[in-house]
Every structure is written in C-alpha cells, then in structure tokens.
C-alpha cells in the first residue's frame, strides 16, 4: 500500500521522546517543514515537494537570555491557528514559541524550577493548538497551561491553568476534523493513563475524565468526537470523548507506543512504537448507530529502529514520515 521514498537527512539524530516528529505543510509555497528533537537541539528541515531542495536550521533551547545552560528539549510541535502558525518548544526550563520558520522567538514562559533538584522532574510536554486563539501546553506537575495567542505580535498571555491531572502530562490533541459540531475541543493525557476531555473558551470546561488503568498514555488524538489513545502496553483504545464509552480496544504493538497521528480527511490512523513497527489503520464512523470501527490496513517494519515519531504528511494520509531513536534521517513512505 505504501512504498519507501528517499529519506531526508537531519543534522543530528532523534532522541527517544514521545511524538518526536512534527510536520507542517505549507501549500502556497509547496513546502513541508519537519522538526525532530535531539537532546538540547531541534532539527528543522524544509523540504520542497519536488524533492530537490532541503534547507536546514537548528534551534537551541535558549532560556530567555541565558544561552549557556543546555536544558533538554522534550517536544517540538507546530501549532496551526487560523490567523498564524507557531513553532512551540518545550524543555526542562520552559516553553518557547517561535514564528513557524524558526526565525524569531516571540514568547518565552519559564517554569518554576526549585533551586535544588527535586525527585519530581520539571519539564513541559504535550502541545496543542485549540480553536481560534489558544495554545495549550502540559507540565510535569500535571498542570495544563492555556495561552491566549493574538492574531499577530508577541502579546501572548497565560490565560488559564487547568489542574485536573495528578501525574505528568504526556500528550494532548485538539479536534482535528475541523468540524464545528463536535462538543469536545481538546483531550489531555498523563503518565497514569487518565484522559481529560475539554471544551475550550474563556474558561476551559472539563467535559469528562476517562479513567486510566495505571498504564501511561503516551500519545493521544481527537477526531470527530472520538479519542484515540496509545499506551505503554502497546494497546490503542478508542473512546467516545464526551461519554468515555469504549468503542474499540486494539492489541496493536508489542512494545510502548510513542506516536499516533490521524489523517482527518480519510480517517487513517498511524501508530509507531518501540517494537520498530509503524502501522496504518482505518477508522469508520457510523453516525446512525453512534459507533466507530477500526481495521488494520498496513504495517511496515523499520528494522532495528525504536520508533519515536510518526506523522502523516497530508490530510488524506497519502504519505507519512517516521523517526527513530539514534537515527539521523526522516524516513518517508508514500501510497503506491
């Protein structure tokens, strides 16, 4: 179904971090941007669609003005809002927001760092753009920070802190179908597997808390009101966001899942795990019976690679890209 394309080389290898690949498609310029985290550096590549031009940039984890410190980066992700696109980096020290090409840092939010290190690590992880003007970021304490983003400029404000998670936030996702009919806008996940479903607004409203079973949920997606969650046991679960009803349970991988992605137009689901497999699934919604079905379409073994990032490159799922620990390339697959 898919065949391997020419890989994109990156300047330094990918670290073993959840969701360690972000993809941004810039249609007007026929370009795709990729970011991959390596320790305290973010590798950024822009690739032209004809496959002829690649340009590289590396972003360091600068802490405000302190350039000397080298805190490790946990995640880098593009956030697409109707008015603008930002590149968000989360690290042990705080949250950085850049213009989408990585050229200008527009905002820096420092985390509260105790003077002597505590047993509980401090970091930010889990990034999502929500509706018109919000970017949400998770923190190791379990807090979810909500930033209000103006349509231009750097007047970004921390507007709310959501305190529902008791464990470190792992990932979060906003509704990706673009449908205005869905009630839930955001789902957040944590180390204990608890999922919180939110409605955005001036005050974010908790719609539902789906219990975990003490297994880390490392990657989560929200599509047409369905939560897709990937776990440390290699399982994928499908829940109805608002009610928490389980639609499906998939014994998907033999190891810890690191990344999920959804192609919103086709309902294709991508999963990548430490077992070196990347799998493509198809989700079908039947509104009449209020049911969701999932079937397996395709698997690819990336030999001897613990996968840490897997993302579709377009809304139909025509192509996807994969990164793995210690690998200095982005491997691409395209539908035959």
């Amino acid at each position, binding site marked *: 179904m898919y065949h391997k394309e020419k890989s994109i080389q990156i300047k*330094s*290898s990918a*670290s*073993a*971090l959840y969701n360690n690949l972000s993809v941004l498609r810039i249609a007007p310029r026929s370009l795709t941007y990729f970011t991959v985290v*390596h*320790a305290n550096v973010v590798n950024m590549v822009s690739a032209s669609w004809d496959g002829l031009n690649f340009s590289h940039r590396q972003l360091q984890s600068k802490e405000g003005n302190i350039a000397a410190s080298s805190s*490790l980066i*946990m995640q880098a992700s593009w956030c697409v809002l109707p008015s603008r696109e930002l590149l968000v980096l989360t690290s*042990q020290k705080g949250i950085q927001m850049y213009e989408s090409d990585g050229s200008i840092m527009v905002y820096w939010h420092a985390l509260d760092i105790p003077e*002597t*290190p*505590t*047993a*509980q*690590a401090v*970091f930010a992880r889990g990034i999502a753009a929500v509706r018109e003007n919000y970017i949400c970021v998770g923190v190791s304490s379990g807090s979810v920070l909500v930033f209000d983003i103006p349509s231009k400029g750097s007047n970004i404000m921390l507007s709310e802190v959501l305190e529902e998670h008791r*464990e*470190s936030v*792992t990932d979060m996702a906003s509704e990706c179908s673009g449908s205005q009919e869905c009630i839930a806008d955001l789902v957040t996940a*944590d*180390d*204990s597997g608890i999922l919180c479903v939110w409605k955005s607004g001036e005050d974010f409203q908790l719609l539902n808390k789906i219990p975990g079973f*003490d*297994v*880390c949920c*490392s990657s989560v997606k929200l599509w047409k009101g369905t939560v897709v969650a990937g776990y*440390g*046991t*290699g*399982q994928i679960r499908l829940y109805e966001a608002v009610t928490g*009803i*389980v*639609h*499906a*349970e*998939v*014994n*998907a*991988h*033999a*190891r*810890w899942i690191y990344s999920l992605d959804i192609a919103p137009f086709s309902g294709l689901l991508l999963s990548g795990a430490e*077992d*070196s*497999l990347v799998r493509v699934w198809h989700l079908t919604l039947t509104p009449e019976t*209020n*049911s969701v*079905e*999932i*079937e*397996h379409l395709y*698997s690819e*073994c990336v*030999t*001897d*690679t*613990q996968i840490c990032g897997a993302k579709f490159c377009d809304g139909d799922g025509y192509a996807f890209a994969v990164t793995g*620990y*210690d690998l200095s390339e982005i491997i691409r697959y395209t539908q035959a």
Partner: protein
Amino acid sequence: MSSRTLPLLFINLGGEMLYILDQRLRAQNIPTDKAKKVMNDIITTMFNKKFLEELFKPQELYSKKALRTVFDRLAHASIMRLNQASMDKLYDLMTMAFKYQVLLCPRPKDLLLVSFNHMDAIKDFVRDAPSILNQVDETYRQLIEMYTALSGGEFQLIRQTLLVFFQDMHIRVSIFLKDKVQNSNGRFVLPTSGPVPCGTQIPGMIRMFSCTGEEVRRLQFPSGGGYTGALREGSFQMFGERVIKLGTNMYSVSRPVETHMSGTAKNSAQHRPAHQQC
C-alpha cells in the same frame, strides 16, 4: 529530564565493569586471593557510603567527562593498574553493554531488574566479605525504596534520559557482533519475535464494543513478528528470580576472549578489528 537516573547509570556501569575485570583477572591467571583483593577493593570504593549518599540525591546526570573520571578512579581503587588504552576499551565495552540493556529491556520498569541482576552478581563477588556485603545490601535497600514505587511513565523518563546519555554511541563490540545482536554499523539488532513484555498482549487482535459495552466484533491482523506470551514478572524484592537475563554476566569462563573489541563505527574507514585486551 528524570532526576533519579544517576544511581542506575552508576550501578549498572559499575556492574559491567566488575564483570569485565573479573573475567580479565581470571584469564590472566592472577592468583585467587590477589584477584579477590582487587575485586573487594573496587567494590568497597564503589559502595562507599558518603559517595552513594551524594549519588542518590535527586540531580541531573553527570557530564560524560565527569562520569568517565569517576570510573577511571574506581578502576584504580585497587593495586591493579590499567593503561590508558585498556581503560578506554574497558569503558567503551561497559558503556555499550549497558546501552544494549537499556535499549532492549522489555518494559522501562525492567531497568530495575537489570540493575538487580548486577547487584545480585556484585553480592556474589563479595559473599565472603561480610562488611562489604553489608555495604552492598544497604544500597540494595536504597534502590528498592527509591525505585519500586515509581510508575511505568516515570521509568520511561529515566530510560529516555539514559538513552540521551548514550545517544550516537555506536562502538562495535565483538561479543555482540559474534552473538549477532549488533550490526556491523554499530546499531543493535531489535528482535521482532519472542515474549512480549509483562502486561502486553501479543499484537493481532481488534475488539469492538457496543455503546452498552458488549463486544460486538473481533478482527485479527498479522502481528508482523513471531511474538509469544509474556514471561512471568521478575522479583522486585531483594531476593528472588529476576526472569530477564539482561544485566547478568555474559563473560563466562568458557568465553574468555570476548572482551576484544573492534574500532568504532565512526572510524569505519579502518575496519581492522583492534584486538586490545584490558
């Protein structure tokens, strides 16, 4: 990342160092009492109370250079002397061995069982020296107290922190090459068969449910590997079987020459294996 990583890094690298030294002492036919003295002196230093107190405080990992200095000193805590080249080989070998264990451990939490395998072996090295054994047991208790309550997610963060530390190290080790667990480019072979980790089901099953929670449909798909059911969970107590073998001594007497190593993958222009003994 995780501020609880350093004790595990130190104990496991130290454990690997002791395996190699023990094997070298035997291969070189050093008299038993002399060899025992070397091992005991190094283990006494490794489990020094003050040093471990510092080690167990929450902190970032040491830099690569600082950690190397710690092990240079530890290796020279006895009358045994290693030249620079031997020390380099020793350090490369113990580092790659632990990288392999971190990468391959089935669940992040199994890192603790890997550490316990090392600790069990260290206890066996000093079984005739009660005061040193006490020191080791004290650390054992600290490990159990600090780590057994951590969640899978917290262990994954520790594992990810270790993997950043070992990132881009692709030194080829002959024992791994011979066992076909390492490729000639220095990358480790990841199996797609064998037992799945505890708590994981063999991939291949989709179950779908109705709104009332009844199972309405079951689908199967090819797992893409030859997986078998999980083994029973190893013991997280001071005693008991650990079940997993990672972290046990791979340098048995019957494999005496296995500490030879070949050059790093980065210097792959020179593919001649450098047979240097420690």
